[in-house]
């Protein structure tokens, strides 16, 4: 639901359902605020995954409500300004594992359909 219709050039929209996993994975490095999370996802995929920053926030709030992340207003270390920092909770860590393994299964299933020869060899 948080995807955009816009697909330009080499980039594509974040796949439905993967955003939560990406956010959780990003937070594994440590607490971050919304803008940082968005930038991080964009940069690590070399801008391949294009998304509007705004669409990140519904996901963040959803994760917070489920108790997978916790949020707190804190002053940023490099500048004198408060941001809302999101932090992975223990529940979130477990969820990340679950999603990761689901994603792997999905990839494998897709791969089997797409490249059956590779599977047989």
């Amino acid at each position: 639901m948080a995807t955009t219709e816009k697909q330009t050039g080499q980039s594509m929209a974040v796949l439905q359902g993967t955003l939560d996993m990406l956010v959780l994975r990003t937070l594994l490095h440590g607490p971050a605020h919304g803008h940082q999370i968005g930038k991080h996802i964009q940069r690590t995929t070399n801008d391949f995954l294009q998304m509007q920053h705004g669409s990140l926030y519904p996901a963040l709030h959803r994760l917070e409500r489920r108790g997978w992340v916790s949020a707190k207003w804190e002053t940023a270390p490099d500048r004198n300004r408060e941001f809302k920092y999101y932090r992975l909770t223990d529940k979130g860590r477990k969820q990340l594992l679950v999603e990761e393994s689901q994603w792997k299964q999905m990839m494998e299933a897709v791969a089997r359909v797409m490249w059956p020869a590779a599977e047989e060899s």
Partner: protein
Amino acid sequence: MRWWQIGKRDADLERELRSDLELEEEEQREHGLPSEEAHYAARRAFGNPTLIRDQIHEAWGWAPIERLRQDTRYALRQMRKSPGFTSVVVLTLALGIGATASVFSVLNAVVLRPLDFPNANRLVEISSLKDGKPVGTSAPDVKDFATESRTFEKMAVYDEWRKNVSASPGGEDPQELLVGLAPRELFEVLGVKPLLGRLFTAEEGLQGRNHVTLITENYWRTSFQSDPKVLGRTLTINDQPYSIIGVVPDVIPGWLNASYNQLRPLSLWEPFLPGPDVWSEQSRSARGYGTIGLLKPGVTVEQAQADLVRIAHNLAATYPVDRDMNIEVIPLETMRSGDLKPLLLLLMGAVGLILLIACSNLAALLLARSTVRQREFALRKALGAGRTALVRQVLAEMLVLSVMGSGLGLATAWGTTRALRIIDPGHLPQLLDLTLDWRVVLFTLVSGLSTCLLFGMAPAIMSTRVESASVLKAGGRGSSGPSRQGFRKLLVTAQIALSLMLLVGAGLLIQTLQRLQHQDLGFRIDHLMHGQIYLPPSRYPTAQSIDEFSDRLTDRLRAVPGVRAVSITEVYPPSDRWREMFSIEGRPVSRLEDIPSTVFGVVDANYLRTAGIALVRGRDFSESDGEKTMPVAIVNQAFVKQFFPDENPIGRRIEVGAPRILLADDEWMGSERVTVTIAGVMHDNSDQGLALPVAPQLIGLFRQMPRPVNSGFKDLLVRSDIAPEALERSIEQQLHALDPRIPLSEAESMSDYLSDLTTVQRSTSVILSCFAALGLMLAVMGIYGVIAYLVAQRTQEIGIRLALGAPRSTVLWMVASQGLRMALAGLAVGLLGTTLAARSLTGLLFGVSAFDPLTLGSASAVLIVVALAACALPARRAVRIDPIQALRTE
């Protein structure tokens, strides 16, 4: 965070989203974009903030609340946009609900609220009945009831007396106070625990041991400033020292008083010992005490009644004085409501009608508004709003309106109850408990919300049933189908019917009040004042001492300039509760139940002259009728009519008191008897209160009566040209010059006293008249609304008619006849309703029939006039329509 912190949460979110935008903007600037472009680039990268906000709210799971907030906000905006409509609706609701809540709060205090006693549902009042009327109980009877009953846990007899009480050590400056006489059991039955000290013991109910008193919390506060060391102090009650043994809370309400005419609250209690031989056999016929019983758990009132009837039956077999006596057991809660209940139910019914009228007006208003808003709804529907969304929207508007209306209504009720308590301090002791408790608040809110839902639902659904295309095509000139107008006419007809019922009810009650106040009571009310004194037996032990004091006081008062006549008496109109058995010489009676009885009283020689009662036949009492001369009596016309229909009563001899052979101890005379000779016949004067016909009455002179009848309880009647307040001071002066330790109490002008007696009827008729006016006003609004709307709808038609040469009078009649038709239909229905309600009304009326043609006729006339008046403005507008203008707008 919880949903009610939604505002804070929203602000939080706003801050978070803004900081993202700002960071993005900074970054874009660092990439070298000019600041304005950076701003837009950041926005583009962010996406649609409104959509995102919505998605986040969705993620919070608070969407329904969010929608409610939105609907409410929208409703408030709608209301601000049409302040006229809003204020009319809210005021209508506030009036309807306020009136209903006010009446309900009285009903709650008098009928509904549980009594403040533990075991309240097991408390009953017991009274003996003679000829179907409660006459109280006698102490020996109650003792037998208590020992023989199987259904009562406990029973207590009690009474209250006027006594002269002084808190100062020497007994100076006494006040006349109402003193309760009660055994320990009364407090136990009611579950009253002393705040300080202890209750009476059983021995303290015995002669000689009874000089102890329990003071009430209120008396403790006013006379002792709540001094905790009050125990052991001495009060002087009727010149006798009583020591204070405890303080009891003020939980025993005035309506519990054994004699209903004493509405003052009690100030203190002493052990139940009204006379030294109250418990002995000769007092079995001395009834008039109150009795309260506590039923055993699980026993019904009917079972208790049957149990006591059985005992009363046995008693009647043993004691002749108990023959022909019935017994009645009623729940204490019924006793509290007393004769107020039918009136209150009437008012509740009336206020229900008001609420109905208000609501039907509301429904009509909403319908009219929905017609106006059809275009808006059609547009919203066309833009994709679902039907449920529209209904939800309309209901939210209703909800906001009803909350405001209920709130204002509650405030109105609060104001009314405050006003009632201020206007009526103590005439109706039940009203002292008048408060807005949770029942009233709940009732108000429930009635407010349910009326809104009930009457708002139909317009809500109707208004959303719009065909977008046709309405939008019609250019927004909302036309409502004939069925909708029919519904409105039906509502107005119902309003007129209900208003008629209210008008008739108010009219009948006003006439009842008029008849009660202006009936010929048989005595002169103007320039008359009454007061009470009590001569305690310690200083006035003999009949002679009482006579002497009375003579001296009479002489002194007569000497006051402006005083025209003075009488010292023990009875006065309009209500003498004293009844006495008697026998006419030459007409022997062999059975106790056949002995006639009469309203009785003892007076002085000046009574008829002072009270202004006319002598019809024979002679008046005179100063020369004294202790040594032949005892004489005066009877009223009713007495003559009943006992000497075809004979001359003058000179007939009558023995006052039950015949000795049949009953040795008379209730009032004891073992004494006196034979009086009828000297004169007085004009009938009220002796059973205002609403009952005059009963046979016989009065004698107290100085010619034995001591038990010539008691220390005396009433003063003074006829003078002096203003009541000044007169009261003069009487007090003269009284205290004779005996400074006798207080004057209940001093009041006769007209004030009489108007006190009609308090209930007066306030009811005032309230009912207000309701009728309110109903009428609402009906006028209803009629006006419909007719004005019709005229507006038919502007073009009327324009064409006028253009084609229709006379203005025809147009006028066309409009007026619409209103008249509704009025006549409403009258027909209303008259039918009045007929149906007549039965419940009859019991409350006096001197006027529920079908009084004058009342019905004038109420109908008023309604027709009002209906026509409501048509007048729209009709004028119709006649003034300019045909050219009307056609051009087409």
